[in-house]
């Protein structure tokens, strides 16, 4: 972006970073759904968007061969699917029995769902809009605040807090926060993320998870204060630079 240019400046092009609402019924960027495949066989995976199938994936679950997981990027599948008939698979993959089908959207603002059917495509076995026992729903919340977390089917609820980060010390936890969504509700019922930390919700019953920001945490410093702090840090940092070498 050139100074004074006509383009609207935009520091980030990942809309997921500013997302304040998440739903397992609509898979978006910075979220994923993992579904176990316990039975061997051939399956048809259909990627849907706005009640319309946009791409298909052929998934083979083997008794002994294949990977532990098949990753399907629904955004990429939609793009590939635009150029070919729906009955032509955009991707084929093989996993071992007991492995997982991992669904994610690498980018874009779309909201997707996925169904798994038998090899004929006639018998639907699973729909991502209704998570089953053993499914994992993960998300990466960034916007600081307090969120409500609800299983819309069992009506159980929990709260999640994403703190405002003021210092570089508490960043980027490697391990996600693990939460169980079972018949007794969410466990834990309240959790706090640390840094940029993913949250993984393991479903132990039929679930549809909705997460929404209830109260944003405001920066307790004004922009002027922040700029003043920036300036002070800069002056101190520049003072640490080398002095000009002596001249003759």
């Amino acid at each position, binding site marked *: *972006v050139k100074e004074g240019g006509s383009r609207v400046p935009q520091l*980030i*092009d990942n809309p997921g970073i500013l997302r304040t609402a998440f739903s397992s019924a609509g898979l978006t960027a910075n979220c994923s759904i*993992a579904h176990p495949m316990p039975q061997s066989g051939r399956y048809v995976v259909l990627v849907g968007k706005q009640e319309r199938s946009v791409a298909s994936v052929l998934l083979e679950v083997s008794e002994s061969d294949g990977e532990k997981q098949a990753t399907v990027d629904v955004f990429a599948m939609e793009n590939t699917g635009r150029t070919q008939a729906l009955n032509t698979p955009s991707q084929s993959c093989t996993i*071992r029995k007991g*492995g997982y089908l991992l669904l994610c959207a690498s980018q874009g603002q779309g909201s997707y769902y996925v169904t798994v059917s038998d090899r004929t495509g006639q018998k639907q076995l699973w729909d991502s809009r209704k998570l089953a026992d053993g499914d994992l729903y993960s998300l990466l919340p960034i916007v600081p605040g307090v969120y409500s977390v609800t299983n819309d089917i069992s009506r159980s609820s929990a709260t999640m807090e994403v703190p405002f980060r003021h210092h*570089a010390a508490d960043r980027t936890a*490697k391990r996600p926060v693990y939460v169980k969504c079972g018949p007794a509700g969410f466990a834990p019922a309240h959790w706090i993320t640390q840094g940029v930390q993913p949250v993984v919700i393991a479903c132990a019953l039929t679930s549809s998870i909705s997460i929404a920001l209830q109260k944003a945490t405001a920066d307790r410093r004004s922009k002027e204060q922040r700029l003043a702090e920036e300036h002070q840090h800069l002056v101190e940092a520049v003072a640490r630079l080398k002095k000009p070498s002596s001249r003759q």
Partner: protein
Amino acid sequence: MSDVTLKVSEKTFGEVFNKLWPAFKAPFSGDGSWAGLWGAVEGQFHIVQAGDVEFNDANTFTASEIDLQWDKLIFKIGIDIPTIKIGKFCLLPTPDFLKDFFGSDDCLVEFPGGQLFTAVPDPYVKFNLSAIFQYIITEITIISKVKMQFTTEPPPDSNYWGIYLDLVALHVEPIQIQDTLGQSTLLLIAAIDAAVQYIYSILPATFVIDVLLGIVGFPTLSEFILNILDIQESVEEWLTKWLNIPIGIDQLIYQKLFDAVLSDTALYKIDDPVTLLTELTPSDPTNYGGFGPSGADGTMPAVVTLAKVTANVLQPAVTFTSHEMMVTFDFAK
């Protein structure tokens, strides 16, 4: 021996050189990359004068200590904020009872990771060097012959032989910044402050900066930018290196001066034909010996036209001695 010999002293030649040659302003721009960063300059300068003009034995003259004055010099360096990736993380560890089946890997299901910041526009840190113009030392030397060239002009202007520079050598030293008062450091602070303000102004929310800083591991955006600039030495040495090496400002100045020499105006002009006597019309004959009125009735005033006297220039030449420039030519008979 030539019909005409004109001699111009070294001092007079230097005064003419200093009067005519600095008349142009030279805007220029250039860019370059260094250590993964992109930098660019926009500038304009003009020549004030040559400190010393000397005639040489080799039929050339040397103009040294040419004083260059900056009208504008802005240096920009792009802040290439890197694409930041959220790494892979384990969604589901492998249960112990499945490790034999799936292998010893501890993770059964892994999130493949993704990009958190992508296609970041690259704001830049802009240094307006006007505050340190007086500390930027530029040494320029020209060694030149002069040449005569005939130019045809539409009437009423006369055709002429012009004496132009005929460049033998042009030398521009890499610039030096001798900032004795530490103004460069203040420039750096002002430039980064402005860049920080700009980035804050385009962000949807300030927490995004904290997320970014958390990932890159810096307490403030200004320190992050300072780190990107990678100033290993003093600010003035860093600026000097940037301007001289990747930008090649001496070459940019050289090119502008070279172009100016090629398109320069004549230092001296000799009309061709040379007017020896201008036309006088009408002239009162009484001024030339006393003729009375003429004509049949004696009423017509006596007038006479003195024709213009000109001579074409032949074999013009210009040479230097150690103290004089000599222009010689003959008249056509």
